C-alpha cells in the first residue's frame, strides 16, 4: 500500500502542483531592475538635491528627457480639450457635466487633477514646459499627492485642508524613484473623479488598487492572478494614452493586435480576437451586435457605491443655528451636503444598455436645450441597423442642475472661491454664483435661473468579471430582461408578434375544444346505440 502511494499518488500530486504553477501565469513575469531599465534615477546627480517646488523637479527631468514636455503638451491630459470631427470642442475644459458642472471659474479646485502646476485661472500658460507635472504619473513611491485646491501643486510644507493633513512631500526622494505609471498613479485622478472615491465612473474606483478576481479578472492582484495594470491596455505612445471616452472604439473589426497592431489597443478584441469564445461558438455570433463589456461586466460599482443622483436644487439648506448640514448614511456616504445638495448612491448595480457606434453627442454651454423633459447632457449615437453599433453598457448619472430658462442654455456657476467672491460654496447665492461664473466665461446669461433634470451616460469597460460570472443568456433573452427597453430589433426570447401568438392560441385552443366536443358527441351517440341495442 505504501509503495502504491509512493509510486502512483506522489508523482501525480507533484505534477498536478507543477502544472498548476504553469497555468496560473501572471501577465508580467518578475524581472530584476537591470532588465527593467538602463537608468537608475537614484544615481543621477541632478536629482540628488533639495527641490523647492514641482516645476523645479520638472526642469531637472527635462534636462535629459528633452522632448517630454512637448509630447505632454499634445495630450488631452494636458489641454483638457478634444477637437471633434464635427467642429465641436470637447474635453474637460468645455463639456457640461452633471457632477460639478464645469471647470471654468473653479480651476484651483478642479485642476488638482491636472498633470500640471499653476492652472489657477484662465490665464494659465499652456505652452509652459516647467509647469508639466511629471511626477504625478511617474511617482514610484506612492507618497506624491496634490493638494485638493492647490492648482496642481502638492504640499511643499505640511498643510491642513478641510480637516485633513497633507504632509510635506519629499520631492528629491520621489524624483529619484520614478517609474512607469502603475494603477496608483492613474487612480489618483481616475478612481476619484467627481471629487472622491467611486463617485463618477462606476467602473473605476480604489477597489481596483488591490482587487480580487471577482472584481476585475485582469487587474486582480492575488497569487497567480494576471495583475495587469492600466497601461497594459492603455498602451501609451509618446505620452498619448489611447482609449478615450470622447473617441471610443465601439467595434474593433481588426481583431488581434499581434502581429499587426491597429490604433485601438484598448479594445477587448485587441487581445481576445474576433472569435473569443472557444467552447460555445454561438456566443461568437453575438459580437457584431453586442459589446464584450455588456455580458462580461454584469454589474458595476462592485465593492463601493457610486453616485447615481446629484440634485443641486436642494443645496443651500442650513440647520437651526444656521450651520451647514452634512447627512450621511450608515456606511458614512454623504446623502446631503449644504454646499452640493442631495445625493443617491448604488453599489453592485446593473448598468443600462444603449446602441452605441462610438460617437457621443454632447451638449455644450452654447447648445439650446429642451427643458420640458430630462436633458441628456450626452447621449450615445447608434442604431441597431448600422454595422458599427453594438449594445454597450453605461452608467447613467442623473440629477438636477442650474440652467438659464430664458436662453435655454446650461450655466456655469462659480462654486469654489473665497467668502465674498460670489462663489456658491462660500456665499450660497445661486444668482450671484451663476452671474460671476458666466461673466468669467464670457457667456450670455439672462439673469434668471432654474433647475432642470439631466442625465449623463458613462460607457463601461472596467471591472470585467471572470468568465464564470458572465451574464447568462436569459438575462437578455427573456421578457422583462435587461434589454426590455431597447427597441428596434428582434430579440429571441423577448419578442413575439401578436398576430402569430393569437393565431397559435386559436389553433391550439380550437383543436383542444374541437376534440373535446367530438369525444363528447361520440360518447353520447355510443350510449344511445348501446341502449337502442339493449331495447
Amino acid at each position, binding site marked *: 500500500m505504501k509503495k502504491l502511494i509512493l509510486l502512483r499518488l506522489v508523482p501525480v500530486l507533484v505534477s498536478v502542483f507543477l502544472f498548476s504553477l504553469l497555468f496560473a501565469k501572471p501577465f508580467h513575469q518578475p524581472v530584476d531592475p537591470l532588465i527593467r531599465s538602463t537608468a537608475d534615477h537614484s544615481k543621477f546627480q541632478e536629482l540628488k538635491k533639495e527641490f523647492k517646488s514641482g516645476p523645479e523637479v520638472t526642469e531637472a527631468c527635462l534636462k535629459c528627457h528633452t522632448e517630454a514636455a512637448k509630447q505632454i503638451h499634445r495630450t488631452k491630459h494636458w489641454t483638457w480639450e478634444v477637437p471633434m470631427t464635427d467642429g465641436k470642442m470637447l474635453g474637460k475644459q468645455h463639456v457640461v457635466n452633471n457632477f460639478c458642472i464645469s471647470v471654468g471659474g473653479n480651476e484651483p479646485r478642479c485642476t488638482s487633477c491636472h498633470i500640471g502646476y499653476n492652472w489657477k485661472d484662465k490665464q494659465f500658460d499652456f505652452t509652459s514646459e516647467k509647469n508639466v507635472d511629471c511626477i504625478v504619473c511617474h511617482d514610484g513611491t506612492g507618497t506624491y499627492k496634490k493638494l485638493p485646491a492647490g492648482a496642481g501643486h502638492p504640499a511643499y510644507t505640511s498643510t491642513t485642508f478641510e480637516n485633513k493633513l497633507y504632509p510635506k512631500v519629499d520631492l528629491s526622494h520621489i524624483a529619484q524613484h520614478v517609474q512607469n505609471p502603475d494603477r496608483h498613479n492613474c487612480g489618483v485622478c481616475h478612481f476619484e473623479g467627481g471629487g472622491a472615491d467611486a463617485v463618477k465612473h462606476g467602473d473605476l474606483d480604489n477597489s481596483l488598487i488591490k482587487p480580487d478576481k471577482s472584481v476585475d479578472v485582469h487587474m486582480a492582484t492575488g497569487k497567480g492572478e494576471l495583475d495587469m495594470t492600466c497601461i497594459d491596455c492603455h498602451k501609451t505612445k509618446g505620452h498619448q494614452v489611447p482609449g478615450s471616452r470622447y473617441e471610443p472604439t465601439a467595434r474593433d473589426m481588426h481583431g488581434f493586435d499581434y502581429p499587426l497592431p491597429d490604433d485601438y489597443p484598448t479594445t477587448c478584441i485587441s487581445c481576445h480576437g474576433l472569435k473569443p469564445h472557444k467552447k460555445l461558438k*454561438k456566443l461568437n*455570433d453575438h459580437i*457584431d451586435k453586442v459589446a464584450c463589456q455588456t455580458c462580461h461586466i454584469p454589474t458595476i460599482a462592485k465593492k463601493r457605491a457610486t453616485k447615481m443622483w446629484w440634485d443641486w436644487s436642494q443645496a443651500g439648506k442650513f440647520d437651526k443655528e444656521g450651520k451647514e448640514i452634512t447627512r450621511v448614511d450608515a456606511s458614512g456616504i454623504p446623502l446631503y451636503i449644504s454646499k452640493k445638495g442631495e445625493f443617491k448612491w448604488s453599489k453592485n448595480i446593473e448598468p443600462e444598455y444603449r446602441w452605441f457606434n462610438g460617437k457621443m453627442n454632447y451638449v455644450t454651454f452654447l447648445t439650446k436645450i429642451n427643458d420640458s423633459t430630462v436633458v441628456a447632457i450626452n447621449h450615445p449615437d447608434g442604431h441597431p*441597423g448600422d454595422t458599427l453599433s453594438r449594445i454597450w453598457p453605461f452608467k447613467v448619472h442623473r440629477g438636477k442642475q442650474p440652467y438659464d430658462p430664458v436662453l435655454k442654455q446650461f450655466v456655469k456657476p462659480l462654486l469654489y472661491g473665497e467668502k465674498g467672491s460670489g462663489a456658491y460654496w462660500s456665499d450660497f447665492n445661486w444668482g450671484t454664483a451663476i452671474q460671476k461664473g458666466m461673466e468669467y466665461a464670457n457667456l450670455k446669461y439672462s439673469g434668471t435661473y432654474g433647475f432642470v433634470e439631466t442625465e449623463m451616460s458613462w460607457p463601461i469597460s472596467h471591472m470585467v468579471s471572470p468568465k464564470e460570472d458572465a451574464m*447568462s*443568456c*436569459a438575462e437578455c*433573452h*427573456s*421578457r422583462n430582461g435587461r434589454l426590455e427597453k431597447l427597441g428596434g430589433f*428582434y430579440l*429571441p*426570447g*423577448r*419578442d*413575439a*408578434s401578436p398576430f*402569430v401568438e393569437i*393565431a*397559435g*392560441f386559436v*389553433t*391550439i385552443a*380550437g*383543436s*383542444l375544444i*374541437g*376534440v373535446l366536443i*367530438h*369525444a363528447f*358527441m*361520440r360518447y353520447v*351517440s*355510443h350510449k344511445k*346505440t348501446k341502449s337502442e341495442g339493449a331495447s
Partner: protein
Amino acid sequence: MKKIYLYARFQRFWHWMQAFIIFSLLITGLEVHGLFNLMGYETAFHVHNLFAWGLASFILLAFFWYITTGDFRQYLTEGNLLEKIMMQARYYLIGIFKNEPHPFKKNEISRLNPLQRITYLMLTLVGLPLQIIFGFAYYYFNELVAAGMNPGWIEPIALIHTFLAYMLVGFVIMHIYMTTTGHTPTSNIKAMITGWEEVEE
C-alpha cells in the same frame, strides 16, 4: 375480429423517436420563445439545437427506408383522391356518431386511410422540412447574413418558425385524439407499439 401485422419494427421505432424528438423540440422551443421556464433558456437552447439535428437525420433515414423498401407506396392513391378524402371526412363528422363502419378497411397492403395519407405526406414532405429549413436559417443566421442575406430577415424567419410550431402543436393534439377512433379507443396505439392491430372483419 382479426389481428393483422400493420407496422414493421422500423416504422414503430421511427414513429416513437419522431414523437419524442418533436415533443422535446416543442417544449424547448416554446421555452426559448419565453412562454415558460422549465430547464432554463440556455439548456433549452442547446437541447433544441441538438434535437433539430436529430429530427433532420431521422427524416432522411426514413426517406431512405421508405424508398428502399418500397413502402412509400402506402402514401400513393388511385382514383379520385379528393372524393376519397371527403368520404373519410364525412365519416369523422357524421358517420362515426351513427356507429357506421370505417369507409376504408385497413389491411397489410393499405394501412392508411386517404385523409391520413394526405396529412402525413404533407407533414413529412412540406410541414416538417419547412420548419427545419426555417429553424436552420434561424440558427445559421450570421453565416447567411455574411453570405449576403438581408439582416432584417431575422424577424420574419423567427416568426414563421414560431407560427409553424404552433400549427404543429395543433396537429399533435388532433393526431393523439384520432388514435382513439379505431376499433377500440386504444387499438391504434397498441398497434403502433406491438405492430399488431385488431380490425373489424
